[in-house]
């Protein structure tokens, strides 16, 4: 059996994802990979490249364009012995196959009083910034975090791409696994410390402002921390459900200021939940109101200029953080 160390330090995020799936396929023959062109074609983004050659037709399965069918089948298979990793491709396409995720996978363990276990991983690719237009750019993680019974993980580092994939496969619950396309080519330390699913990581320590983020925005927040006159403590949440509020609270207790940054539309986004919980727990300890930075409530336009103007940038993050520091 190969080990995690097969991923070289300074590996790419995309290769770490593939390695995570390969390790899962290798260690447990109940694991299958399923989706449109994930097989011989190696995936539309090449994330599953090489898996079909290594594991064959029955483990790495090309599906027709039938998301309602094959995502539902993955859920049914997960109830009955397989451990599918099913790809939905662009997260936006989940619109055509929500039922198996929302009403089936998320609820059947509960409704059967635990008699059914549904270990399925729903891989989805998210992210704006490539002029892909309104139907190929959405970050919908809050939808899933709102549904009890689903876990939602969003790897933002190379090591997490592999490790969270393995954790998601090992998890007895349905896990929505959100990959950001803009991270695919990113290189990073594949041997970074492994944290369990559900535990946030302090990506950079700091004193003045706690910045909570996930996914692609981690990079922007880390750049902001480099550039900013304020000292930012950047927390990579890694998963929204479960939400590691302890790590956030511990940090905000010290800094007294919280900024939440996400690429998703800010209105009714996951940031609101975190803000509410922190406000609830730390009302007396906060020096300033909790602030959020996300995309405005508009569909993502095709124009690269407009798109750029709507997405949070490191500059906007650092000035928001500096603003918070100046406030109190």
């Amino acid at each position, binding site marked *: 059996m190969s080990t995690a160390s097969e991923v070289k330090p300074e590996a790419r995020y995309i290769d770490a994802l593939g390695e995570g799936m390969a390790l899962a396929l290798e260690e447990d023959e109940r694991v299958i990979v399923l989706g449109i062109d994930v097989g011989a074609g190696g995936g539309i983004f090449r994330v599953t490249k090489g898996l079909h050659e290594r594991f064959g037709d029955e483990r790495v399965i*090309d599906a*027709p*364009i039938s998301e309602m069918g094959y995502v539902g089948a993955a859920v049914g298979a997960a109830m009955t012995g397989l451990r599918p990793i099913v790809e939905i491709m662009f997260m936006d396409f989940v619109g*055509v196959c929500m039922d198996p995720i929302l009403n089936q996978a998320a609820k059947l363990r509960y409704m059967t009083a635990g008699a059914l276990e549904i270990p399925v991983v729903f891989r989805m690719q998210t992210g704006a910034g490539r002029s892909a237009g309104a*139907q190929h750019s959405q970050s919908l993680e809050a939808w899933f975090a709102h549904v009890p019974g689903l876990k939602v993980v969003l790897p933002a580092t190379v090591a997490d791409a592999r490790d969270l994939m393995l954790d998601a496969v090992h998890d007895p619950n349905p896990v929505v696994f959100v990959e950001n396309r803009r991270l695919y080519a990113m290189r990073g330390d594949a041997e970074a410390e492994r944290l369990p699913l559900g535990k946030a990581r302090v990506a950079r320590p700091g004193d003045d402002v706690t910045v909570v983020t996930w996914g692609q925005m981690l990079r922007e927040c880390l750049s902001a921390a480099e550039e900013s006159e304020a000292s930012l403590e950047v927390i990579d949440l890694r998963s929204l459900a479960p939400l590691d509020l302890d790590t956030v609270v511990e940090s905000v207790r010290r800094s007294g200021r919280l900024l939440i940054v996400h690429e998703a539309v800010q209105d009714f986004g996951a940031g609101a939940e975190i803000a509410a919980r922190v406000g609830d727990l730390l009302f007396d300890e906060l020096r300033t109101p909790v602030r959020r930075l996300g995309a405005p409530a508009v569909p993502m336009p*095709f124009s690269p200029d407009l798109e750029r103007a709507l997405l949070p940038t490191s500059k906007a993050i650092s000035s928001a953080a500096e603003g918070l520091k100046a406030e109190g």
Partner: protein
Amino acid sequence: MSTNETAAGSASGTATEEFDLFATMALIRAFETRVSELYRDSEIPGFVHTSLGQEAVAAGVGSALADGDYVATTHRGHGHCLARGMDVEAMMAELFARGEGICHGKGGSMHIADPAKGVLGANAIVGASLPLGVGAALSSKLLGQGRVSAAFFGEGAVNQGAFHEAVNLAAIWDLPALLVCENNIYAEFSDSRRMTRVPGVADRAATYGIESETVDGNDVLAVNELALAAAARCREGAGPFLIEAETYRWHGHYEGDAQPYKPEHEATAWRERDPLVVSRTRLLGTGVAAEQLDEIENQASTRVEASIERARQLPPPELEEAYADVYGE
């Protein structure tokens, strides 16, 4: 084009008719060829799916529709838009993400639309054109609009639930829906023949009780005749009709896809049945001069080139544009 001309009435294509069809194909060919290059050179952002090799379907069906008829199309929709008379300059400006683009730079290639011309839009969700097109046919029927609604889709979309639900609705509601499948064999990297046991898309129509016909999608005259007849049926209230046009995608699924999954001989054989050459050969046979056809092609190139020059000079959208049109007043 020929608004109320019924197919049954019109003799099989005269040279004049095919001449117009050839011109439409030449425009699509020129447009797509340049779009492919501009995308390669990073002048056009986002995702682009060209319809090179499939021009006869767009021209044949587009020309069979009348003013006001609806079109709902796919990610590979430039040809359908051009064949419905959408403005070349406004389309090119849109692909360049300019404020003066037909969608103000907010749609792009995958979402290009011109409702004023009946074009409800290209669509980035596979299968979405079918229910939308059927809905437009419902409007036509219930509001007495007398319009035909053409929904284009790829053969890859027929495994999507939306196809089945939409076809059934069109059938039970007896809608004036023209369901046009462009069967170019591939869906992304997959040979669609491996994704179903049903040999033809047209066969599926029968299971929903609607009529259908398969046509050589690289023969613009054949496509046009069938589409004219089918549209006439729709207009007479005879219910939906499904056309399966057999054709081939020359370029990759998206621009830049090297297509390792396609057998060489297959691609070559289809290239030899270039829809423009098929049409040109027939036109030459009817006595049309080669120079005349060359001239048509040159005019198409000039028109496309002018649209590119113009698009290059145009500014990007104003920032306010990003916030406009989310809701109506």
